[in-house]
């Protein structure tokens, strides 16, 4: 069964139709990149998959392991194994990072009817992932994302990804606000999490992220639909020629 099956998806936000018949199938182990001009609907796609309030599916379907996502709340989708690495991770003053991580892990456990994580087990897990991703310990003592640099925010999101062990990792414009070194560190983190049973959906305007998180498939999203699909070479082609051709096609 496909991990994610999107069929003829039409979706709108505030009465405006953004996705106009989008179809996409992602299987476990695959890395897909969605590229496209600004305003094509890239972020809308990630919002619709993850269940952000305000985004409404009007037609078509989004199935995750055969389950209709339209019937699940955002937190339920996350518990099922969908993870969104935010373009701009949100600062939450007053909520301690460690408390937040533990709450998230326990939420998932509760969803599956499991016991809460033992405090020692949690610390062990966190320490091992911090080491794996080369994250500074003191970040965990701070409020969520508050005072983090752009690179730290992305790395912190990758740490959450490592802790929550999702099946589908959606990277929304991961390169936003990052210099090349910060980008490499964040991408390296993502790569350490790759495995045959997990898939990645990489949403990006620029090709540079795909040098580090190398896709199996590249799709061009324009005018709310996928207008072209190919292998990783398509990304290089887009980098060279730009999106003009597709913008015209979509219009």
């Amino acid at each position, binding site marked *: 069964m496909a991990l994610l099956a999107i069929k003829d998806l039409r979706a709108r936000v505030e009465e405006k139709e953004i996705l106009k018949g989008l179809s996409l199938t992602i299987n476990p182990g695959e890395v897909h990149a969605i590229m496209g001009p600004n305003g094509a609907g890239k972020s809308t796609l990630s919002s619709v998959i993850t269940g952000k309030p305000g985004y409404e599916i009007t037609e078509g379907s989004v199935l995750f392991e055969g389950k209709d996502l339209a019937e699940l*709340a955002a*937190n339920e989708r*996350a518990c099922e194994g969908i993870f969104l690495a935010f373009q701009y991770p949100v600062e939450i003053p007053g*909520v301690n990072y460690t408390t937040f991580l533990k709450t*998230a892990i326990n*939420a998932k456990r509760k969803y599956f009817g499991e016991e809460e994580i033992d405090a020692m087990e949690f610390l062990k897990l966190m320490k091992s992932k911090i080491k794996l991703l080369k994250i500074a310990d003191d970040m965990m003592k701070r409020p969520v994302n508050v005072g983090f640099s752009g690179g730290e925010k992305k790395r912190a999101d990758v740490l959450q990804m490592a802790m929550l062990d999702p099946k589908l990792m959606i990277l929304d414009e991961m390169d936003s606000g990052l210099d090349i070194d910060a980008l490499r560190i964040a991408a390296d983190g993502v790569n350490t999490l790759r495995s045959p049973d997990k898939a990645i959906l990489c949403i990006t305007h620029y090709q540079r992220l795909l040098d580090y998180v190398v896709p199996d498939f590249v799709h061009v999203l324009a005018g709310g639909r996928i207008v072209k699909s190919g292998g990783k070479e398509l990304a290089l082609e887009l980098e060279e020629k730009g999106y003009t051709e597709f913008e015209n096609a979509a219009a």
Partner: protein
Amino acid sequence: MSTTEMPPFLDAALPVPVEETGWLADLRQAGLDIYKRKGLPTPKVEAWKYTNLGGLAKTEFKPAALDVTVAADKLPLAAALSLDALALVFVNGRFDPAVSDLGALPKGLRVESLSKVLQAEPALVEPLLGKLATREDLPLAALNTGLLTDGLFVRLAKGVTLDKALHVVSVASGGSSAAAFHPRNLIVLEEGAKATIVESHVGLPDFPTFENSVTEVTLGEGAELKHYRLLNGPDTSYHVGVTLADVAAKARYESFALAIGGALTRNEVRVVLSGEGAHGVVNGSYAVHGGQHVDNTVLVDHAVPRATSSQLFKGVLDGTGKAVFQGKVLVRRDAQETDAQQLHKALLLSRGAEVDTKPELEIYADDVKCSHGATVGEMDAEQLFYLMARGIDEETALALLVEAFVEDVVHEISDEVVREAFIRKVRDWQTGREKAVWSE
């Protein structure tokens, strides 16, 4: 009000347990005169514009009987702060030695019931009692003065530091009818003395109660008082309290009040910074739901140069809860190089809730640094989605965000042990709220 009509709370014969000396009788009379002239404040009085005591005046409160006691196992201590501290219990404003736990008092500390001091050593309190509180613009404090019988008396000798906090638990209990009581507290820290005093105001939900308390605080040069209050009465309780502090040179007065219980709570704090280098912190936090009403009214008076002050209040409102914040900074003509800050932030969780904010700066000096700000906002949708996108259900996510909002100011409490106790209280409240409110 017609001139023949008597304002409420004076209609019954009042017990006077101590033998009155001349000055005390005069003081009481001065208080009664003010109250009779001014009456119970109505919204027509500027300082009471947003807090209406009309409902209170309609209830027939009787003066709390002197003999009401609450058995140790019936005390609503779960509502109070849980603290390892020297504990004093007052029931309806009367000290109850049977359930208090003071142990051996540290040297230099006097802690007693005011009635005892009035009986045994009236000269000790004569120069202080009513010095700060007998004012035309505080009619309820004047009523308190008129009826004063008992309360807390604390005096800490020069240079003494109190290691353990002093915890005053004030229990309101109607006994057999709606009851009003008027505790009067006097706190004196001599030069360089340092103490933490915590008040927990709780009650039994048997009959409506009205606590009208007055606390006068005098800090000598270089003294430091950390003064924290928990206002957590049952839904049947009304609490109007005014705390007046006089802060001498280089002394530091730090106050924090958390209001989470009670039908109506007014926490009024007036701080006079009367010596150079004095520092006043007046902070607070509140959480209201249902039809609760919380009013925080603050006046910081910079009477001399080079004093500093800050006010930070944060509150959460749900249901048809109502909150009032009136914060005023007064900088007198000579108070050059004053540094004063004020901030109030409210988080609205429902459309039925209401916040009234009135920040005021009244500045007569020209070389000052003053700031004030006020915000009223709703839950941040982006933060909520971020938490939910990590698998956290909406209720838990909301609880985390509300707790974070409220705790932010609780973290400003500089006494670590007390801070932890308040954080536990916020979390208890939050747990109770999840059960009680979000299931509505």
